[in-house]
């Protein structure tokens, strides 16, 4: 669906996105993760033509982001990070404004969704809470048939119940046909539930990306213990392929793997140490291991 090649954006001297080469398969729900300022919003904006890339190329469904920007925006739906917009308009006015740009937009569908969420059509947008604003934007998008959704923190400002409603809506929407979603978020639990692919951005660079399942099966934490027979060869282990990082924890060494943990386990067994204990890592743990703050680099 989306293919970028060396996409870069500098704001003045500061690099916001550097050399992003990334692929979003059609039909996937892709989670784009990273700290504030990692380049997630900038990436989405470049894809939609709101920000001009400094260099590099990108295509969405075969359309070039520089040449065919209008066509891309016709087939994609977008929720911005700033949800409180068009404050002066009433909800109904906003819907008509938005819907007027799309041939496949349905007023009834939008109203039905807002009814279900109990959002009054007559209120001015600025009188609504941030969460309700987000819901209005979502209702507008779901009243049409975009092939791609680019969502910048879609559940930001939503209470847990609304978050659940929105995620459920997204999960159900993705079930029909060739629909793709890219969600930029901090909320790892949500990403872990509904995304099948994830990418971590750190300081504008892609730290890791791929199928969530593969990530979960290749990123494991393996604990090995020092015993009477000898100490763990820490330096040697750090050099091993497939070892991402090591964390000394008292008498135990925690090894975080990438790609094939089995090879690491075999080699550890070969060292004659006590049987290593393998832990599955959830997305938060993988993220913290692979995108540490600069001060707290682990290995």
């Amino acid at each position, binding site marked *: 669906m989306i293919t970028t090649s060396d996409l870069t954006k500098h704001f003045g001297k500061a690099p916001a996105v550097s050399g992003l080469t990334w692929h979003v398969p059609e*039909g*996937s*729900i892709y989670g784009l993760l990273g700290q504030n300022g990692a380049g997630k919003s900038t990436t989405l904006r470049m894809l939609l033509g709101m920000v001009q890339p400094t260099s590099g190329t990108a295509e969405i469904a075969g359309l070039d982001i520089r040449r065919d920007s209008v066509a891309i925006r016709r087939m994609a739906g977008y929720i911005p990070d700033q949800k409180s917009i068009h404050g002066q308009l009433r909800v109904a006015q906003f819907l008509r404004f938005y819907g007027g740009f799309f041939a496949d937009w349905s007023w009834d569908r939008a109203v039905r969704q807002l009814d279900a969420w109990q959002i009054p059509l007559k209120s001015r947008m600025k009188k609504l809470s941030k969460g309700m604003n987000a819901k209005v934007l979502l209702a507008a998008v779901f009243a049409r048939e975009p092939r791609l959704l680019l969502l910048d923190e879609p559940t930001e400002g939503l209470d847990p119940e609304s978050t*659940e409603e929105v*995620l*459920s*809506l997204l*999960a*159900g929407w*993705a*079930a*029909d046909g060739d629909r793709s979603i890219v969600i930029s978020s901090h909320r*790892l*639990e949500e990403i*872990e*539930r*509904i*995304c*099948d692919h994830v990418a971590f951005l750190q300081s504008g660079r892609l730290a890791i990306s791929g199928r969530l*399942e593969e990530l*979960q*099966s290749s990123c494991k934490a393996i604990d090995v213990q020092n015993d009477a027979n000898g100490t763990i060869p820490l330096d040697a282990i750090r050099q091993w392929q497939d070892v991402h990082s090591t964390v000394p924890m008292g008498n135990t060494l925690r090894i975080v793997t990438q790609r094939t943990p089995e090879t690491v386990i075999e080699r550890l067994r070969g060292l004659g140490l006590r049987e290593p204990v393998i*832990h*599955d*890592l*959830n*997305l*938060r*743990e993988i993220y913290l291991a692979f995108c540490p703050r600069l001060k707290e680099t682990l290995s």
Partner: protein
Amino acid sequence: MTVKVACFIRPNSGEPIYQQLTRQLKHAISTGSLKPGDQLPTVRELAEQLVINPNTVARSYKELFAEGLVEGTQGSGTYVNKALPRIKTQEREARIEPFIDQLIAESSLLGISKQDLLKLIQERIRNHEETIHDNDIRSDETLR
């Protein structure tokens, strides 16, 4: 009419969601919560209900289909198979052995003796049978 499935997904436990779902669906089928002939929720319905990726649901269903536990085609719905799959004894044993090995390893690490382990297994089997029995009664009552 599709049957509502009571599944509990823990996204950040580290266990892949599709694995959790498959396991729980199998449990539901084996205990009779999902009876032969029952229609499973559509991929979309279950994804919305559990708030998980629809591909995950589809994959679970595919695995159940491959194991002969469910039948059906896209568009017509997914149904619990009326007959249990016919698997050769050898294959059945080959499939269950890894689980037994894991059980033995875990219990030895925990320091559970062989006798205690066997007692525990019998207890769980009793519990499983009681659940099936309860589900049978419940479905009889709803039919009445």
